[in-house]
């Protein structure tokens, strides 16, 4: 007896959507093992990790707050991934967005622009900053044929160092006791809070709007269709005269713009100033969100909630279980592994055959 994989004539629609569930359940099983290995009661640990963080109104607001940047970035990345444009530098594009948007907030300072003017200006600047950072790999790819995976990733380090230099040097708050941080943004440069007594802000609505627009683009616009064709069959796309250069530019810029918006949302939302690090790895976690959400806007919205819960659970595990919060990264990677493994069921039917 041995296992054989038989190719399905058409991909299984059932498994396209059950594979993420299988992956989530398998990740839970791994969590059970990890918690037991560290001498924690798995049930109590699960409660602390997955239930307690969202048992309160504040917790639910935090869930949505952390899901917003993930949803936003993953939606942008998915547009590129559909066309086989591998932008993995969203973390750097987020950082540039925060620098550009935060730069506007700091430049205006206490000049008392009305929020209806200042906030859009910050978001436009942030999206432009993210797009600029994504344009470099796009240009290097279309002009010099340089692999966008490696160049976009290298630029993450450059962006992080750029922000670090700014908050250590020219943009450091002179009254900040020498801490590497910018001035705190003026009140009119902050996103309005949606739910009183929580940190949930209007950035969540922005994320939802972007998800809806992306859905319309991918499903209803001819260019979105052409990009999907290019991803499914580069040969056919080439034959049909679909420009691969345009796909690379659009794919990269969409990811960069969304990551830049997310950077502004973080700066003008929960953080309220520029710090050396503006994100606990949202740009990388969003790659996982995009895959777990099947590159589909609705799936991405759901997957971003799951990923957000992993972040909250990690924080809760640190406080309540004395486990390092890095357990979040461990679960994120495990989830993606299981998803990719479970995806075999989409295209293949496992069969036990007599050898």
């Amino acid at each position: 007896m041995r296992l054989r994989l038989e190719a399905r004539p058409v991909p299984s629609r059932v498994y396209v959507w059950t594979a993420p569930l299988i992956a989530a359940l398998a990740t839970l099983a791994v969590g059970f093992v990890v918690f037991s290995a560290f001498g924690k009661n798995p049930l109590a640990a699960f409660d602390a990790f997955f239930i307690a963080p969202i048992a309160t109104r504040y917790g639910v607001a935090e869930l949505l707050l952390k899901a917003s940047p993930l949803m936003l970035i993953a939606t942008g990345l998915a547009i590129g991934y559909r066309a086989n444009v591998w932008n993995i530098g969203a973390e750097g594009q987020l950082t540039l967005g925060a620098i550009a948007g935060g730069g506007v907030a700091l430049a205006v300072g206490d000049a008392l622009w009305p929020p209806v003017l200042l906030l859009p200006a910050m978001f436009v600047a942030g999206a432009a900053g993210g797009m600029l950072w994504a344009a470099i790999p796009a240009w290097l790819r279309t002009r010099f044929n340089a692999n966008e995976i490696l160049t976009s990733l290298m630029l993450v380090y450059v962006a992080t160092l750029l922000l670090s230099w700014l908050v250590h040097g020219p943009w450091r708050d002179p009254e900040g006791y020498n801490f590497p941080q910018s001035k705190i943004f003026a009140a009119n440069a902050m996103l309005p809070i949606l739910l009183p007594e929580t940190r949930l802000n209007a950035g969540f609505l922005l994320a939802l709007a972007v998800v809806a627009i992306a859905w319309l683009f991918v499903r209803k616009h001819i260019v979105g269709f052409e990009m999907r064709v290019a991803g499914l069959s580069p040969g056919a796309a080439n034959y049909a005269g679909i420009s691969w250069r345009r796909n690379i530019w659009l794919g990269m810029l969409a990811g960069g713009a969304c990551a830049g918006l997310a950077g502004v949302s973080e700066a003008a939302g929960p953080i309220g100033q520029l710090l050396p690090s503006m994100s606990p790895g949202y740009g990388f976690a969003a790659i996982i969100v995009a895959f777990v959400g099947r590159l589909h806007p609705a799936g991405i919205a759901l997957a971003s909630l799951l990923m957000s819960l992993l972040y909250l659970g990690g924080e809760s595990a640190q406080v309540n279980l004395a486990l390092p919060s890095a357990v979040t990264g461990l679960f994120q990677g495990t989830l993606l592994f299981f998803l990719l493994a479970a995806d075999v069921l989409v295209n293949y039917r496992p069969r036990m055959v007599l050898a």
Partner: protein
Amino acid sequence: MNEIAQIVVLTLAAGTPLVFAALGELVVEKAGVLNLGVEGMMLVGAIASFIVAAKAGSPWLGVFVGALAAALLSQIFAVIVLTLRANQVATGLALSLFGIGLSAFIGRPFMSVVIDGIKPLAVPGLSTMPLVGKLIFGHNPLVYLSIALFLAVQVFLQRTRAGLVLRAVGESPQSAHAIGYPVIAIRYAAVLFGGACAGLAGAFLAVAYTPSWVEGMTAGRGWIALALVVFASWKPWRVMIGAYLFGSVTLAQFQAQAAGVAVPSQLLAMLPYVATVVVLALISRDATMIRLNAPASLGKPYHPE
């Protein structure tokens, strides 16, 4: 003259993690598999070696366990890509993210632990010889190991039958399968070797170069190693040149800082990353050259049926 010898020693040391990681990835890619998980495997190799060095007191045992741990980790990638036929790019990314998370998780208690690392050679009478003493006998033992690895990879790929078969698998898995070679098994072995090399690279950083454990201490060297393989157009000797060039860039950055150059340290620290981007763009420009040198089936799935 002693200063020059010292600079050479430091440059080789700075380039050595890239030598290990890039030579391993080169063999993997020669077999037609693109493993983007080098950064993750390096970090796991680094923390595994560091823990063993700290707990067992033997950095050499640590180097061995570091290579072993990363090799084991690489097999998760191999199973998902080679047996379960998943996309190599996505799975490699998953491996990197998983390795980063895993190493940060298990490494937390070792953040400020001090160990006795592997020191540069000091052969009595020889290492102190004027001029050549340091150049020939004054390197870290792992630097010699990396050079031996280079020679072994070079001979294996160009002068042995097994190396020829591995390259055939990377160029045309269909043909290799048709004449009876076990394509999938060979690719498993190549990924295993690449994992062990990435583990050595991480171990060198954790128990010899620094020696210490810091979260994400590889600082993108795994990704630079991937770029280096392209830069080297899949030739081992060019990997060596590229690795030492990057070593000198890293070194120049530290030297400039130490010399008090009036450029902020963060901007100097961008140098290796910017250099990688620029070099990658310059080398990739010649699409024909890349196409002729890259293994023909690189990154493409192959399933014998």
